[in-house]
C-alpha cells in the first residue's frame, strides 16, 4: 500500500471514531467539538482526493462557522442531552438498512481517479473544459472557469440559495414571533400571542419602573 492509501485509511478510521463518539456522548459541547473534528478530518480526506476547493469549503464552513453556530445554540438550550425514554430500535434499523443500500450502491461506481471513467471521457464536458478553458478565459484554474463561466447559472442559483437561507433564518430568529414565554430576571413570564418584541420590552420596562428597580439597559443586539 502506498502512503496515500495509508493516509486514506487512517483518516477514514478517525472519521468513524469521531462519528461514533458523536452518537455516544450525552455531553452536547463534546458532540459539537467532535462534529467539528469530523468536518476537519473530512477536509483532510478531500485533500487526499485532490479536491482542494471542496476541502477548503469543508474546513471553513463545517469545522469553523457551523461549530460556532452550534455553540451559540448550546448557549441557549444547555449543554446536556436528556436521556431518551425508549430504545431507538426502529431508527437504528432504518439507518442500518439505508447505509447498507448506499454501500451496495458504491459497488456500481467506477474506480476512483481512473482516467477512463465515463465522467472524464465526455467529449463536450470534461475534455472540453480541460483542453479549452485556458484559451477561453486565460484563467489557469479550471475550477474557477467552470464555476464562474461554464456553469455561471449554477453558481448564480447557489448564491441565491445562500441568500434565501439567510432570509429564512432571519425570519425565524430575528423578526419572528416571540416564544410563548420569556425568561426575565429569574422568572418566566407568559407572552400573550400577537405581542411584538417592542411591546414586550416596553411592558417589562414599565413593570420594572413600577417596582422601583434600577434603570434598565436595552440588551437587544440587532437593529
Amino acid at each position: 500500500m502506498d502512503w496515500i492509501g495509508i493516509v486514506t485509511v487512517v483518516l477514514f478510521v478517525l472519521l468513524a471514531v469521531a462519528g461514533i463518539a458523536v452518537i455516544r456522548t450525552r455531553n452536547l459541547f463534546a458532540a459539537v467539538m467532535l462534529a467539528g473534528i469530523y468536518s476537519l478530518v473530512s477536509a483532510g480526506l478531500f485533500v487526499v482526493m485532490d479536491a482542494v476547493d471542496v476541502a477548503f469549503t469543508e474546513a471553513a464552513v463545517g469545522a469553523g462557522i457551523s461549530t460556532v453556530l452550534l455553540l451559540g445554540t448550546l448557549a441557549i438550550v444547555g449543554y446536556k442531552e436528556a436521556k431518551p425514554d425508549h430504545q431507538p430500535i426502529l431508527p437504528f434499523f432504518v439507518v442500518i438498512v439505508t447505509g447498507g443500500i448506499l454501500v451496495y450502491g458504491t459497488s456500481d461506481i467506477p474506480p476512483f481517479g481512473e482516467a477512463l471513467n465515463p465522467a472524464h471521457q465526455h467529449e463536450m464536458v470534461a475534455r472540453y473544459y480541460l483542453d479549452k478553458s485556458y484559451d477561453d478565459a486565460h484563467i489557469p484554474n479550471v475550477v474557477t472557469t467552470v464555476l464562474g463561466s461554464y456553469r455561471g447559472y449554477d453558481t448564480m442559483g447557489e448564491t441565491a440559495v445562500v441568500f434565501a437561507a439567510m432570509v429564512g433564518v432571519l425570519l425565524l430568529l430575528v423578526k419572528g414571533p416571540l416564544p410563548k414565554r420569556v425568561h426575565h430576571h429569574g422568572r418566566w413570564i407568559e407572552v400573550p400571542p400577537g405581542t411584538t418584541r417592542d411591546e414586550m420590552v416596553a411592558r417589562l420596562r414599565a413593570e420594572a419602573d413600577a417596582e422601583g428597580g434600577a434603570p434598565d439597559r436595552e440588551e437587544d443586539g440587532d437593529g
Partner: protein
Amino acid sequence: MDDRVILKVGAKILIPFILLFALYVQFHGDYGPGGGFQAGVIFAAGIVLYALVFGLDRALRVMPFKVAYVCGALGVSIYLGVGFVAMAMGGEFLNYNALNADPAKGQHYGIIGIELGVLVTVFGVMLALFYAFAGRRRIDP
C-alpha cells in the same frame, strides 16, 4: 484586570491576517484553490472571532447587523448585475464574452465580477447567521 489577556492579544494579532488571507483566497482563486465562497466564509470568520473574544456588542459596532444582511442581498445583485451588463453589451445573460472586445478578457472580467458578488453574499449571510444565533438571547430589558 482583564483575565483573558493572551486570548485578546492573540486574536488581535490573528484577525488582520485572517482578513488578509480571505482577500488572498479571493484574488488568487484564478490561479489556485479558492474563490468567492471560501473567501467570504473566511472574512466572516475573522469578524466572528472578534465577536467571540471581544463580545457581540463590540463586534456589532465594528460590523453592524444591517451591514451583514445588506451585503447578503447586495452580492446577489452584483452577480445578476454582471449578467445584465453582458446583456446590455450585446451578449446573452451571463455571457461574459460580450464584456470586452477580446472575449477571453471579457470572460476574465465577468468571472472577477461574479466572484465579487459571491464573496459579498457569503460574507454577509455567514455574519448575519452568526448574529442571528448569537443575538438570540432571552428578553432582558
